[in-house]
């Protein structure tokens, strides 16, 4: 579906039509007022300019697309190639554990089991990496299934409970009084979104702060909101927040680790679902992030 974005040619032709129309009008004026010879000379000049523009446009639009496309494909392929030897490693460990290569003692079994689990972990990390690369480039298909956003938020909240308690943060998740119906979403990706927002809220909220999250049905659809009492985002940095690798100046100062990729990926996913994402923030007071998902494909 979205793979086409990468390899399709940009429609830059609109940039030729403008000058072309102007040239034709000038040509007609020349013909009407200065006689045939002048008009012919202009016609030749105009043709030369137009061919030059077309040539320049073809070169300009061809090269970036191709190299961008090859970059994504070769990154994906490289990542896939990481999995190939790992499949063999995982399988051989599993067969050793099953006794296919002879009986093994308890100590051997123990170490093999741990190695097997690590190889399995590595495979899952590579799959995640592959997902990240694809999401980053906007080259992915949504795997839509009936999903409960409530359940996703609850499971993410549960996952972060320990960290929240460690930082002595007051946490609240307000659900709507009636259970919301399921929506057609890519569950894995929406979970990534919620995780990213929770992660940021917790990360940038100091000890003893508070985080409040809400889920509600509005006219526009399902709205999720997470409000923290953290470091906030300086006003002059707010418009860059969703761009790749961007980290606000005060976030970098805190020395808290962050790749700067999270929000750009989050925005990418919400947009892919035809939703909206926005925020309000005041430096040193806190930030509130919102996203909204249309419920046009509601499942009863």
């Amino acid at each position, binding site marked *: 579906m979205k793979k086409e974005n990468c390899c399709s040619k940009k429609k830059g032709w609109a940039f030729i039509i403008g000058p072309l129309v102007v040239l034709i009008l000038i040509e007609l004026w020349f013909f009407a007022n200065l006689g045939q010879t002048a008009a012919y000379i202009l016609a030749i000049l105009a043709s030369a300019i137009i061919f030059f523009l077309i040539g320049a446009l073809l070169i300009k639009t061809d090269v970036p697309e191709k190299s961008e496309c090859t970059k994504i494909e070769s990154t994906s392929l490289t990542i*896939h190639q990481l*999995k*190939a*030897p*790992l*499949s*063999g490693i*995982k*399988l*051989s460990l*599993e*067969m050793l554990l*099953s006794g*296919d290569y002879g009986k093994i003692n308890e100590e051997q079994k123990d170490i093999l089991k741990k190695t097997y689990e690590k190889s399995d972990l590595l*495979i899952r990390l590579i799959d995640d990496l592959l997902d990240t690369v694809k999401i980053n480039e906007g080259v992915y*298909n949504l*795997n839509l299934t009936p999903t409960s956003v409530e359940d996703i938020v609850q499971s993410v909240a549960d996952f972060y409970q320990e960290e929240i308690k460690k930082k002595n943060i007051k946490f609240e998740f307000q659900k709507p009084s009636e259970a919301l119906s399921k929506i057609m979403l890519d569950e894995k990706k929406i979970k990534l979104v919620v995780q990213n927002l929770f992660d940021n809220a917790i990360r940038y909220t100091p000890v003893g702060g508070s985080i409040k999250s809400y889920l509600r049905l509005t006219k526009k659809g399902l709205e999720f909101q997470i409000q923290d009492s953290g470091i906030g985002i300086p006003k002059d940095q707010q418009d860059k927040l969703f761009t790749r690798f961007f980290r606000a100046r005060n976030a970098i100062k805190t020395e808290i680790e962050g790749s700067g990729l999270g929000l750009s990926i989050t925005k990418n996913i919400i947009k892919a679902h035809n939703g909206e994402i926005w925020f309000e923030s005041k430096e040193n007071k806190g930030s509130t992030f919102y996203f909204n998902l249309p419920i046009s494909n509601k499942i009863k």
Partner: protein
Amino acid sequence: MPKTILIIEDDEFFRDLVDKKLISEGFDVAKAVDGEEGIKKIKEEKPDLILLDLLLPNIDGFEVLERIKKDPATASIPVIILSNLGQKEEVEKGLEFGAADFLIKAQFTSDEIIEKVKNVLAKNR
């Protein structure tokens, strides 16, 4: 008479593991390292089932599958695709091209591979 399984897989490490498991379960195993050799071996060995890797050098797995299914002499042999790609489109394409089943190498245990082989063979009687 033991059933013959042909495995078409270029990764020697992986191929030898599957070979060992199949033999320990009482199957006869034929091996091929790429599509061309695979197609040749199908005609020679007349296997009861084919395990086909999709990421092969030279002709790719899908083309091999297509050729197997287009040839009336080999079309009836069930094919199980072994792959690392595992994307939905690949699975659908494989099944569309006539594969009997699909296995993602990094996700299955050796026992599960054997189970699938036995199931497909049973279905194909």
